[in-house]
């Protein structure tokens, strides 16, 4: 189906940063199972993403490239943050990211990228197709949009039969791969792989909406500069701390080595530090 004339654009899925970062399952899917089949990241709530749309606050940006520019940015939403990359193969996005101020509200369309570090950690980032500066109203709309889509997926999950506890990996791979998979199948596959805790992600949506609500109550017509104050202070501290650890290449100091298998759940708490490992152009 997807192969026909090669002309069906992939939908950009709406996924909160926390959920994106909890993802660790990617696969190729399509009528023909070859290297040209599109690749997907399946998130814990069953969003099958070849492309995602994210709106949030760009809190930091750095050129981490060597001879050629390779830009990395961090985009924060009410649930967490995600790293975006743009290099020589995304010239327009790279150029825009380079010219942007942090902090500012940005909209990013990008392809999810799963990268496994030497010690087995999984890092999800986005290879940006486009980055544009937007306003706070658009960010608010995105939170609503993403909350709605996430709830739709949670409803699908609630209807999936509890997965058999044995051999979760095998079952996930055994689900017949069809390009025309539907939300129910994606949900089933997600449950089999992640044993998704619905309430955990329901709480994530609640948190996002509640923080949006308190943002709204603080008024919307504030000037651009105050936007920094509205971001969780946490992100500010974090970015400062990380900039340090990001520039020094090796010190994976004091951090306990995480050695879960692929099927295990990455803990959201300790992820932030992991993310700053300089993965360079590999992604």
């Amino acid at each position, binding site marked *: 189906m997807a192969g026909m004339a090669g002309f069906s654009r992939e939908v*950009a899925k709406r996924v909160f940063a926390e959920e994106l970062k909890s993802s660790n399952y990617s696969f190729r899917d399509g009528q023909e199972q070859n290297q040209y089949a599109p690749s997907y990241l399946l998130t814990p709530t069953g969003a099958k993403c070849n492309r995602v749309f994210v709106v949030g606050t760009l809190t930091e940006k750095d050129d981490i490239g060597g001879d050629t520019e390779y830009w990395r940015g961090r985009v924060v939403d009410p649930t967490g943050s995600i790293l975006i990359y743009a290099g020589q193969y995304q010239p327009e996005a790279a150029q825009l990211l380079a010219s942007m101020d942090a902090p500012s509200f940005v909209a*990013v369309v990008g392809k999810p990228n799963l990268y496994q570090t030497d010690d087995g950690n999984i890092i999800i980032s986005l290879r940006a197709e486009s980055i544009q500066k937007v306003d706070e109203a658009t960010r608010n709309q995105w939170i*609503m949009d993403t909350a709605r889509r996430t709830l739709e997926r949670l409803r699908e999950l609630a209807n999936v039969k509890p997965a058999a506890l044995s051999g979760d990996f095998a079952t996930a791979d055994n689900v017949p791969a069809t390009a025309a998979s539907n939300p129910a199948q994606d949900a089933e596959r997600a449950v089999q792989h992640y044993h998704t805790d619905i309430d955990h992600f329901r709480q994530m949506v609640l*948190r996002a909406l509640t923080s*949006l609500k308190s943002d709204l109550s603080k008024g919307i017509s504030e000037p651009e500069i105050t936007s920094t104050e509205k971001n969780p202070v946490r992100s500010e501290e974090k970015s400062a701390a990380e900039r340090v650890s990001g520039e020094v290449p090796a010190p994976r100091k004091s951090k306990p080595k995480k050695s879960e298998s692929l099927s295990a759940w990455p803990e959201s708490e300790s992820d932030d530090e992991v993310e700053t490992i300089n993965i360079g152009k590999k992604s």
Partner: protein
Amino acid sequence: MKELVDQIQARLRDQKITVEDVDIESRLKKLITDFRVPEGEARRSVLNYFLKEHGIMPQARASSEKVKVGEIKETGRWVDLEVKVLDLWEPASAAISQTGLVGDSTGSMKFVKWAKSELPNLELGKSYLLKGVVTDEFQGRYSVKLNRTSQIEPLDTDVEAKPASKAARPTKVVDINEPGQWVDLTVKVSQLWEINSESISQSGLIGDETGTIKFVKWVKADLPDLVEGKSYSLKNLVTDEFQGRFSVKLNRTSQIEPLDIDIEIGSVAAEFSGALVDVQKGSGLIKRCPICKRSLTKGVCSDHGKVDGTYDLRIKAVLDDGHRVQDVLINRETTERLVDLTLDEAKQMAMEALDHEIVRSVIEGKLVGRYYSITGPRVDRYLLVESISELAPVLTSDVDELLAATEVV
């Protein structure tokens, strides 16, 4: 806080449930303090939580009312239906034990019975009272879901319903929004296309006053050929869908009657809301062939060769609502208003930059990533934009509504 706890305790006592005050309080605190949930919502959430813990469905779900299929116009409602099973389909997922079509005198709709519900199977052609089923919607089409709390009671009486498959209804092109429906159309053939499959005898576009749609006539159907520009009454066609675009198929059971009248092909506005995720090549400042108005590639028209083109401004963009993508075309007038840039200014800008692509960059900067709502006629894969507006800002009441919905997932 004490007050809230007491209110919840009172409600729980009604259901003969005992819960420690501290458990209620810690849950309330978590919602109100940590997650900034408003008190009313938190109270409801905590109450529902403990009710659910003890196997009692919250109030909102407990009462389902008896309705007709045709009355179902919202999602998440718990209803009772007296219906006949009109069709059974192959479930697409192991999570589904049965799926198909049920109907009564007012209409028919899809039903889904979850494997988890452990309900008995429905039989084709039999009538049932379905109690405590929940309504759902996907892309404007309603369905009902049978879950663990639903009940099935066979009825002795036969519920009157139109048989599903063979009952083709006279339909307008614009109303075709569901695959697998049998329809009668009164249309004019607007285009015939080249055939690239041996199983297809004819394919092209047909239309009525509400719009156009692709048709496919199978070789096996053994039907007379349609002539471009002629009008016909086409009976018993089946609708199909591919990537959000609908078509009709003429098969062995279909009939073709030529008409003497001439059907005027028109269009009815379609709507789409979503994020604008791409401004495609060929947007911005372009040149058109003075003869056929088509856009030129490097000053060359594909029909008329090298011509002296005229400047125009347009946008080819992609809107995406998270479920579907929609290609849209925005003409000069709307582009000028939307981007706040006239054709003359665009020309000036391109001249100064010695690059007409700069106009596309400016358009991207203004539109990409924002949410729009558009209306206009649909022509093939494009929606020709007649009106476009940014979505209204999010209001606190919108957020509250969604928060409430989050509670009942």
